[in-house]
């Protein structure tokens, strides 16, 4: 059930690059499922394998970032498919908040609906945060949704979040279903008036 989310603190994990699409976050073969359980193991699987083949390490495979809670990405993160499997995989891996320059809207909506704060920072700040985390993976990143600030290693960065989602996290109403259900009498009244549900009368 929904709960209040004001601050997230924990170690950071960088995922560099613009336009990281949801096929990269969770390849489509893992969408052949009827629950989201277990998706965390497959987050970024193809990117991880590709880097491994080149003798490199994806941050999700890098022991220095194991147990991180705050993912720092760049622009247009989560573009492409609407699959909620993507933020579900990231969350089930252990991420509790995302900081990025921008998001696709569907991805961002999915994050809010799951109670996963996803805030925006400038391109320069996203890169600065990634560099700080890379230099000191143990540094604690603190995201404060109330004052919209990210602090790490003695530095503070301003971040953005729409007023709606911000309120939803702060008052614990990010799972909108309860409120939507409360509105059902008004929903029925609306349906009784819509032209296409009433023979265009």
């Amino acid at each position, binding site marked *: 059930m929904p709960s209040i989310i004001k601050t997230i603190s924990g170690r950071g994990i960088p995922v560099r690059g613009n*336009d990281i699409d949801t*096929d990269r976050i969770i390849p489509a073969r893992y969408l052949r499922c009827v629950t989201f359980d277990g998706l965390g193991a497959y987050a970024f699987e193809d990117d991880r394998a590709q880097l491994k083949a080149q003798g490199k390490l994806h941050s999700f495979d890098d022991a220095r970032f194991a147990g991180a809670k705050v993912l720092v990405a760049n622009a247009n993160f989560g*573009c492409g498919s609407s699959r909620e499997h993507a933020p579900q995989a990231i969350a089930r891996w252990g991420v509790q908040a995302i900081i990025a320059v921008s998001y696709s809207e569907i991805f961002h909506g999915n994050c809010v609906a799951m109670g996963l704060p996803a805030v925006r920072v400038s391109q320069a700040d996203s890169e600065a945060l990634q560099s700080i985390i890379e230099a000191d993976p143990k540094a604690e990143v603190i995201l404060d949704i109330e004052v919209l600030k990210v602090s790490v290693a003695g530095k503070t960065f301003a971040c953005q979040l729409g007023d709606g989602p911000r309120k939803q996290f702060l008052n614990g*109403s990010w*799972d909108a279903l309860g409120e939507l259900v409360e509105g059902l009498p008004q929903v029925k009244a609306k349906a009784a008036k819509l032209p296409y549900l009433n023979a265009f009368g």
Partner: protein
Amino acid sequence: MPILPPLDGSHMSRNTLFDKVWDLHAIRTLPSGQSQLFIGLHMIHEVTSPQAFAWLRERKLTVAFPERSVATVDHIVPTENQARPYADGLAEDMMQAIERNCREFGIRLYQPGSGKQGVVHIVAPEQGLTQPGMTVACGDSHTATHGAFGAIAFGIGTSQVRDVLATQTMSMSRMKVRKIDVKGRLKPGVTAKDLILHILRVLSAKGGVGFAYEFAGEGIMSLSMEERMTICNMAIEGGARCGYINPDQVTFDYLKGREFAPTGAAFDKAVAFWKSIASSPDAEFDDVKTFDASAVEPTVTWGISPDQGIAVGEKIPAKESFAASEQPGIEEAYAYMGFKPGQPIAGTSIDVAFIGSCTNGRISDLRAAAEVIKKHGGMVKASVKAFVVPGSEAVKKAAEAEGLHEVFRAHGFEWREAGCSMCLAMNPDKLKGKQLSMSTSNRNFKGRQGSPEGRTLLASPAMVAIAALEGVVTDVRSLLEGGSVPPGRAG
């Protein structure tokens, strides 16, 4: 400077179709400041719905308006052997889940063999379910397609699928509206697919975040309904969650006589309503961008994002032609695709040719491909695997009635059953290794077509058809304009 258009309440647009349809469906302002928005048509498929139904059961909720949802199966459906149970046990589990969920909650399900199954974004329009002035939602980003009718159509995640099932509403913030004003008309050999790839190239994959796109102008209104669907389908590839086109006589003519379209006097009343929700002459937009349709050429993507497209006669661009922040992504695209800047795209050898998907799997797309094949007269190159996947059972039936399947088969193309097929890697149709596919689908993302190293060039059905026959990327106008350009070369 704001990083993104502000998401809450700061839109300026007025009297656009988006504003009118939004206002018609907004029920109330929620404590978060977002709106509770009524959804007129909800579509369901097997991939993004099982968890939503499970959550309904957990919370002991039911489906509020089961008659306003319609389900079909498309992503996981094999396009060769459709015998049940499916060879893929996970796919079979998903099929059984949607069958059980629809039965239990009283939702209409178009199954394979019903004559109405197919890619969800092809099925709903052909049944007349998608209509102007509606709000439409589906757990699939290409829901934007339905905007072609003058609906506002949103792709949503599974949590929102749950919300729509339980209440026929969702919580949402209003978007800004950008008018994309396309002057002039497309030249022969240039299609709606080329136009939208060109628009994406100019406005970028993220340029539309925060916006609904209104596609307007002679270059859009001169398109058929099916071409309009191709345009709106790919609005999401430009970051715009929805794209729409004002309804006109083309829209009304398409709808007349379809199963769920109004009939008799109600149809005339419907037309009056549909006209009333179009953007008014005095509509105000948050932004306007202008394009010239006559300047668009057959376009092919070369990279790993749908905005990385070039005219078939162009060379792969140098990274210096992009902003500094984009250059690492451009280098990544060169490396993944195995292409070098300055290399022409025409003449690139392909391994696979795929014609189908919610972007280009409609009857007019198959006709366009067949016409190219007949004019060319050759066979699919031995080095190329080419296949045509109708977007729905109805498209398949129509194509077979016209003999299109015989054209495809006679020239070496496989003819399949309806489904999403190789648009994405959820069924047996997949690339292998580093194969290069030329595809009429919508995404050229890394690994999208089923091999983690597989590569995709996006193009129109005509361009994919001629590439299958030539074995290389070829300007289709070489054929349509009387063969003045040698095959395999740019026009």
